[in-house]
């Protein structure tokens, strides 16, 4: 079944009071073939990374950012000190590279750190002031003490009664429809 374009609901949200229950629900959902799922918790739960198959390519981008920073620092200093504005400082060669290592190091760190932060935000789709989940009142507890599991309406296998039945089997403390 193709994903609905105008689904009246965003998905079905189950609430748990224990992180173990959330991890187990995620495991069962993946076993049952649901793919468009997401878990929410007040703190990082690393077991979910494996269960939901989460990987990210942020380290690769940060490495690329760092190398770009290093090359930028090198190019800036080479161009200014050798080509554009050569200055005789105590008879040193124009390309006195040992002195250039420090600014190169700093630009490496700067570019890598900027990539880490903005890369994380962009890949996470943040800032995102609006999200359907914010309609659910109970969801405020996701940043306090409760654990939530969402099966999205866009999931190819999504069918409201069966998803509801599936989530009920996971013994959640509540199940709510997330309006779109």
């Amino acid at each position, binding site marked *: 079944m193709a994903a609905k374009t105008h689904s009246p609901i965003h998905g079905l949200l189950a609430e748990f009071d224990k992180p*173990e229950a959330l991890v187990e629900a995620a495991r069962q959902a993946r076993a049952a073939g649901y793919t468009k799922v997401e878990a929410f918790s007040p*703190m*990082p739960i690393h077991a979910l990374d494996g269960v939901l198959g989460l990987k990210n390519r*942020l380290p690769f981008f940060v490495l690329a950012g760092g190398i770009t920073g290093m090359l930028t620092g090198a190019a800036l200093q080479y161009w200014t000190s050798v080509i554009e504005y050569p200055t005789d400082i105590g008879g040193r060669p124009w390309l006195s590279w040992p002195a250039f290592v420090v600014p190169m190091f700093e630009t490496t760190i700067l570019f*890598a750190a900027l990539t880490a932060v903005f*890369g994380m935000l962009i890949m996470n789709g943040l800032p995102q002031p609006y999200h359907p989940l914010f309609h659910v009142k109970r969801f405020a507890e996701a*940043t306090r003490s409760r654990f939530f599991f969402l099966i999205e309406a866009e999931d190819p296998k999504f069918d409201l009664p069966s998803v509801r039945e599936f989530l009920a089997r996971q013994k959640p403390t509540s199940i709510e429809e997330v309006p779109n």
Partner: protein
Amino acid sequence: MESLPDPTRPMKDHPQPDARDALVGPGHTIASITDKISEIVLSPLAKTPLGWHAMMGIASVGVIMLVASITNLVITGVGVWGNNVPVGWAFDIINFVWWIGIGHAGTLISAVLLLLRQEWRTSINRFAEAMTIFAVACAGMYPLLHTGRPWLAYWLLPYPNTMGMWPQFRSPLVWDVFAVSTYATVSLLFWYTGMIPDLATLRDQAKNKIAKLAYGMLSMGWRGAASHWNRFETASVLLAGLSTPLVLSVHSVVSFDFATGIVPGWHTTVFPPYFVAGAIFAGFAMVLTLALPIRSFYGLKDFITEKHLDNMAKVLLATGLIVTYGYAMEAFAAWYSGSVYEAYLLQNRLSGPYWMFYWALILTNCLVPQIFWYAPARRNVWILFGVSMSVNIGMWLERFVIIVQSLHRDFLPSSWGMYSPTIWDWGMYLGTIGFFLFNFFLFVRFLPMIAIFEMRLLVPKSGVTGKDAPHHGTAHGAPAPALHDHVGRS
């Protein structure tokens, strides 16, 4: 297998033999931790502790002094300060180095201790990071104002300009511009990024509409999704990995400002490590100076426990010994070099006109912290506060000794001179302390000063501790899943 204690694991996986060593007070749940920390920020102003108002009042006086001092400096010129040839660097550089050193503990706690998996950092890392930001802001003011024309400070940066000029990259002063501006940027990013999940908590807990909107904007729509946490933690550990060499580089570069010069007392190879150790020493002293009153004002003894104080005292003791070694090496190198100028510098330090500063430095930095060999002293808040104040003063004296005592009598006796600060030097120095405290107490009031989501990971009965298997997909499918790694933000 699970009953075997793993010595590389932090203490929370072991039974607690001594409640005094706990990192979180008894009886806390993840909900109670959330409520306790967010309540500090979300409670109405009337409920703010009296100590906060008192500190804010004192800090505001300092801010006014700072504004007055800077105004006079800018209108009249740098001549209002006491530094003049031969002592061309004085309070401005002393205070620059002092402040930037203080900032280093914040990065150390948030980055280095994260990589070393020291869980006790959790409750103090957020405000230590805030301390870094404000200390670097205070530090940055000094060299900019010392240029005399701070409105042209952008000339320090490499940019194409109509003068056709570029910075001189062989100068450690240009390295300083790169190191300090990178440090300020990365520290700010690290601090803010780490706060996003907690800002979302405040957004969801706030009752006040304006607060809800403000924290909503700041938290950028964080929902605690597993895929978000995954990238968030990757970003955090990468930032920690990047900040660690950065923090070591910053104070090394600051020490190059001196060590690459030929002035007696500056031209030594021990400077970079000895400056870095001094920075950590100074910074931990300032963390204690701030943590002890805040812990008492806000009743945070469950979160900043005696174990934290004990560990910080040990760091002070260890870095104090490294600094003492630095002083000993300076003296040894002065003698061993056979250089008449270096030998005279040593003699001038011990018995010259500024002898009192040198001996006060030895007292405050080397002798006083030795009390921490005695275990009960590491858990006594009054002794801790006293020693931390002693180190704050001592590290300031250290920079005075290095800068003023070296400059005032260098190679040519005909160009010797004396230095004394003016009222504007003092006004600006006390002013930056006020500015620092002002920002810090605003932070305590409006932002989560303890990393809430990391504290949740420390709760023994939250059900998320316990079985702690490697989290990167165990091939043999361990039945009990690792719910989280033992490092909060990793």
